[in-house]
């Protein structure tokens, strides 16, 4: 690091006048197809007591990276024997003169080098390496991510960072997850670690709102109204959740703090049916569906329900408004305007409404990918009413990218994960409905719930 700084300041001295006054540029060329990036991860070792927790660390790190769906992991059996633990371990091979007079020059290996990893057998594009130690009674991780196809160490570095955790397995997991999150961020990916899934469960005898970790652990009851509470959503900052509940003979929206669980003020209009709440990405407004003039239509209000405005004014039922998380400017919703429930799209001020699906079947539960371009929803197209399957569509082209389920039970309520690569959904077999997670290509399905009936999952960011 020090050397780099010196070099940088030297370069700045020489050419610095130009850089300081201008803006630096990245210029590139985009063509052809790229395969999934190939990632190698060394087995990290620890100094002293840190070594005790390295099995946990390495397992967690590998799992987070391989479960992300964006990396092709290079198996450890292909790794070279000499493994770097910090950037200065890399030593470029040098050409030395032949050992005897008249011999041609030969390549002398001076230590681990980038090409050890980018050549066969590993053939990797990236290397995650580093080590752990103990400092002031805490676990310390030095983590590095290198692009091993670059020509030299100076231009390989993507991550060089320190992480701290408690000196135990939990601390090892924590630093592994944080490191993995930073690595995945380099691939445009948010880590799932820390994200939460909110859902509805009737396991207590009443439908209440529950939450759990992204892998199904830590299932926690969040409400206890002992009536019917459902259709949960979470704000983008992960701090507030909203839902609808049958209180004193009418359906009303309630908002609660995620951290404290306490109810927050929310003013409902006078209406028999208010449902499907939705936060805008900036958290300043809430959209919902309410029956105001005899028809359930889409409305928008402040975060506490004040200043309510009706966005759609049609003589048909409209529900499930979902705001584009990338732009915050347009909305997907379900409307019966065409005669049956179809997917519609409009701007957040209620204008430019147009039908997205083609009029076949019945549509429900739209969900946006965080990229604001791909959407998922439940559709009965091709099957009888009630037989929903999950479809993924590119909104701009209206092209169906993939039908994720194929009539094996009722599959509804898909919701994209914050990483844009996973989804969560509910599936009904016989009398039991459970929640599953899956990759957007349909691989790695995982059942997350078992007790009671569990429905309407939403995948939320964790609280920072």
């Amino acid at each position, binding site marked *: 690091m020090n050397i780099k700084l010196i070099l940088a300041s030297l370069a700045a001295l020489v050419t610095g006048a130009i850089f300081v006054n201008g803006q630096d540029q990245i210029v590139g060329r985009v063509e052809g197809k790229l395969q999934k990036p190939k990632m190698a991860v060394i087995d990290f070792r620890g100094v002293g007591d840190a070594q005790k927790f390295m099995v946990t660390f390495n397992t967690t790190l590998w799992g987070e990276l391989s479960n992300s769906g964006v990396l092709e992991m290079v198996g450890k059996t292909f790794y070279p024997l000499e493994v770097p633990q910090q950037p200065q371990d890399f030593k470029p091979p040098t050409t030395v003169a032949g050992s005897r007079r008249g011999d041609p020059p030969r390549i002398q290996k001076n230590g681990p080098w980038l090409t050890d990893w980018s050549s066969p057998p590993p053939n990797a594009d990236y290397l995650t390496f580093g080590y752990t130690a103990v400092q002031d009674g805490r676990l310390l991780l030095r983590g590095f991510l290198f692009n091993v196809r670059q020509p030299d160490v100076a231009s390989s570095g993507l991550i060089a960072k320190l992480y701290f955790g408690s000196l135990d397995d939990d601390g090892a997991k924590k630093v592994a997850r944080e490191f993995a999150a930073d690595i995945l961020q380099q691939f445009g990916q948010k880590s799932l670690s820390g994200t939460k899934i909110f859902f509805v469960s009737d396991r207590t005898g009443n439908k209440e709102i529950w939450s759990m970790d992204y892998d199904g652990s830590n299932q926690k009851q969040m409400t206890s109204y002992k009536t019917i509470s459902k259709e949960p959503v979470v704000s983008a900052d992960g701090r507030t959740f909203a839902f609808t509940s049958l209180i004193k003979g009418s*359906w009303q929206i309630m908002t609660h703090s995620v951290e404290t669980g306490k109810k927050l003020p929310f003013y409902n209009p006078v209406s028999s049916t208010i449902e*499907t709440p939705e936060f805008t990405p900036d958290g300043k407004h809430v959209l919902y569906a309410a*029956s105001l003039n005899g028809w359930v239509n889409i409305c928008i209000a402040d975060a506490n329900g004040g200043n309510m405005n009706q966005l759609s004014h049609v003589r048909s039922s409209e*529900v499930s408004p979902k705001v584009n998380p990338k732009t915050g400017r347009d909305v997907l919703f379900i409307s019966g305007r065409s005669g049956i*429930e179809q997917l519609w799209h409009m701007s957040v001020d209620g204008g430019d409404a147009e039908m997205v699906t083609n009029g076949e079947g*019945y549509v429900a539960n739209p969900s946006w990918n965080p990229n604001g371009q791909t959407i998922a929803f439940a559709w009965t197209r091709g099957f009888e*009413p009630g037989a929903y399957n999950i479809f993924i569509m590119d909104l701009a082209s209206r092209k169906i990218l993939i039908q994720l389920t194929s009539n094996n039970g009722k599959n*509804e309520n898909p919701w994209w994960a914050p990483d844009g690569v996973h989804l969560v959904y509910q599936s009904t077999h016989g009398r039991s409905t459970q929640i599953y997670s899956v990759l957007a290509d349909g691989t790695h399905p995982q059942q997350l719930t078992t007790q009671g009936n569990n429905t309407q999952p939403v995948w939320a960011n964790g609280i920072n």
Partner: protein
Amino acid sequence: MRNLSRTPVLAQFGAAVFAAVLMVSAAGCKKKIPVPTTPAPTTERAPTPETPAPTPLAVRINNFTGEPRSIERGQSATLRWSVGNSTDISIDHDLGAVAANGTRQVFPSQTTTYTLTAKGNSAQDTRSVTIEVSSSVPPPPPPVVGTRVSGSEILAREGQDVYFDYDKNDIRADGRDTLTKDAEIIKRILSADPTFTIVIEGHCDERGSEEYNLALGDRRALAVKEFLTQLGVPEDRLKTISFGKERPVCTDENEACYQRNRRGHLAPAQ
């Protein structure tokens, strides 16, 4: 008698006393009724059934009963009798000649007195028994004027659900008939209790999404409310609520069950 003439008067007296004693002691045993002119009684001989001997004794009805004494029409009673010294036994009401001891099941359709007649030589005996027959369960006493049956009870007993087509909230022709009757029931309730409030529930079958079905149920409840108010039910006594598909009455996956669930239902307000 020659011996008596030889003795003096004492001897004559002794003989008379002896004859009197004999007569008194003979008179003391009833069983033996000394009838000097008749031969010895034949009772000591073993009876021979095959040979119904003409009984010189009087006819005797030992018992004649009917069990049970009171029945409902259609039920039966059993007559039981035992007769002595008669072979000519009969019961009236066409039961005819019967044996000296017997039972008979009878099905009188109304209260009937059965008479048993037993005849002997120039004598007879009769006995009767009456079987009482009641025709039906008597109705309860009429209600006392002034007691209130609650509107909730009337609604629960008489109110009818109205049914809808799939994904629709229009009132069908059969729905109009149902609601016309329901309107009358409601008006009746309200005339007795003007503060009574009815909640109209809208329900759906399980096939659509929860969210859309909550809205559809809302529409159905509203359609019912509009129809009832058109028929004169005061609007402020009617509230609406949608349950979507949260409260099915059946869970079979067939059209019959789906139709039962696609309903508007009238309930008393809590």
